[in-house]
């Protein structure tokens, strides 16, 4: 309950600081700026607002209206109706992290289930209660490595095939740290470089190597030997994952990685510009005290009943104060719950089945596209549900044509990789029918012949 202070209390406070009225607090703001005339239209009734907002909303073209082949980190999957029905329960719908946690047993249990599912999917030992999105989770892995080596190791090595926005966020996050170097992706001449080539950059000054699985181009690599060479130099390995793919792929924990982070949107969270999305962060037991955010544990109460507690918040400010090594004191509660509900509804076999459908459809699409004159499949490695095609025209132009046919085309890789002009990243999910895929290829052929 929010209790605002009373008139009497306000007067007492003003008296203490020697002011007569609340207005006196704003004397430093020039008078002409205190209450400027705002150029806004007259107010509308609720009915008029609804009509106005619906007009605005109708101007959007969404994945409900279009056939979507756009992925690049956010994917158009089917979300069972039960997901929304469950997460909209009033007891869950307050998304914020509990500040008096143990009183909210249901919230803690939901987080505990989420952590358990993430550990099972990734093959890691501990998962935190989640972060805002895949990009912040990746950056938090870097902060963890920095503090793990107490600033003594200063090199962070990125595969150029890690999501460009994650790499940008990482650089923003780390910009306040003195003397560190972020490398491996600075020269994008060959963005398709194989992960093992990163090994040559790893030395005893390297804190962390960061790769993606499947990578930004959809490719699947076995990172076992990379993990070995990273460890031989005493450094840490982080793998950025699409957790959805782990329904059928080998869990990254089996490569021997130290940290797994990722974007959890593909697990039942709708596509939205700006989120809310879900940051996944999992690691080995030995780094448990180094993880950012919070961790929920299961215990028993004084009567022996099962209960949940906020077990660890080791890097947060409320215990460590000025010694805290992370600003993250929250988690993405509602989205973590969403993914837990989604995973529970699909189950182990269901998730595997949907992942396999995506895989098969993507391979069908890639095969069909590669047969069209002028298009070339840039896949020298196995891929999951996303692949790169080299096009005869600019991706922008092709996408305009596709949009005329109600198709949201793939991602224009030239935006992030100068050497990948005319390269389109195409994502295929269970939402794309065979007819959709055939239509895509018909239009692609049409564009090439223009």
């Amino acid at each position, binding site marked *: 309950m929010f209790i605002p202070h009373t008139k009497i209390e306000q007067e007492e406070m003003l008296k203490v600081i020697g002011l007569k009225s609340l207005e006196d607090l704003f004397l430093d703001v020039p008078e002409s700026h205190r209450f400027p005339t705002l150029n806004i239209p007259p107010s509308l009734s609720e009915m008029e607002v609804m009509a106005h907002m619906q007009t605005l909303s109708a101007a959007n073209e969404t994945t409900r209206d279009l056939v979507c082949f756009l992925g690049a980190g956010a994917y158009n999957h089917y979300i069972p109706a039960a997901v929304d029905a469950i997460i909209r329960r009033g007891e869950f719908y307050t998304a914020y992290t509990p500040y008096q946690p143990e009183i909210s047993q249901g919230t803690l249990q939901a987080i505990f289930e989420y952590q358990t599912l993430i550990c099972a999917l990734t093959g890691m030992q501990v998962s935190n209660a989640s972060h805002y999105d895949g990009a912040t989770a990746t950056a938090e892995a870097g902060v963890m490595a920095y503090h793990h080596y*107490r600033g003594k190791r200063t090199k962070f090595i990125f595969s150029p095939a890690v999501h460009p926005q994650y790499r940008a966020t990482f650089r923003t996050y780390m910009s306040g740290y003195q003397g560190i170097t972020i490398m491996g992706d600075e020269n994008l001449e060959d963005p398709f470089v194989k992960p093992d080539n990163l090994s040559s950059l790893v030395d005893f000054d390297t804190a962390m190597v960061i790769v993606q699985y499947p990578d930004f181009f959809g490719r699947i690599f076995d990172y076992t030997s990379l993990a070995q060479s990273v460890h031989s130099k005493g450094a840490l390995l982080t793998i950025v994952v699409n957790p959805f793919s782990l329904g059928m792929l080998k869990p990254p924990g089996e490569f021997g990685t130290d940290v797994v982070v990722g974007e959890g949107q593909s697990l039942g969270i709708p596509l939205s510009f700006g989120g809310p999305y879900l940051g996944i962060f999992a690691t080995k037991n030995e780094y448990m*005290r180094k993880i950012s955010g919070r961790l929920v544990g299961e215990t028993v109460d004084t009567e022996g009943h099962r209960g949940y507690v906020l077990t660890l918040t*080791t890097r947060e400010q409320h*215990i*460590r*104060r000025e*010694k805290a090594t992370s600003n993250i004191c929250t988690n993405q509660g509602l989205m973590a719950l969403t993914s837990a509900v989604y995973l529970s509804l699909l189950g182990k076999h269901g998730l595997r089945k949907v992942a396999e459908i995506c895989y098969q459809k993507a391979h069908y699409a890639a095969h069909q596209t590669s047969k069209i004159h002028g298009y070339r499949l840039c896949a020298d490695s196995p891929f999951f549900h996303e692949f790169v095609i080299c096009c005869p025209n600019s991706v922008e132009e092709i996408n305009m044509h596709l949009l005329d046919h109600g198709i949201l085309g793939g991602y224009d890789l030239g935006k992030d990789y100068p050497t990948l002009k005319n390269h389109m990243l195409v994502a295929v999910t269970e939402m794309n029918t065979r007819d959709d895929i055939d239509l895509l290829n018909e239009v692609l052929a049409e564009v090439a012949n223009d």
Partner: protein
Amino acid sequence: MNYPNDLQYAETDEWVKTDGKIATIGVSDYAQDQLSDVVFVEVIKAVGEMVMKGDVIATVESVKAAADVNCPVSGKVIAVNEDLSQSPELINSDPYEKAWLVRIDMSNPDELGKLMDSSSYEQYCSERSH
């Protein structure tokens, strides 16, 4: 509160026990009482490292707070108590014996002169309790 006679104490609540040039260091009974239940101890210096008086050698974290442990003397770390990572509660139950943190081969034993004896430290603690 216990303030053993054979130890010397720093203003930041570390104790020092000397045996020739070897100094054993831990945190005092007063410090553990202020911190309450200790849940994590991390010694951040390794055997062989040189430390200067005042350097942070460890962090002790309780359910209430995290505190740095400052080294009261300069020298080389010759031993680190590995038991504390598994049993941090030793800081509460046995601060002066089992919960020693590090052993230092002192490079400047004169620094010991700046430390308090048991009765001065007891006085110092009782002043802060009010």
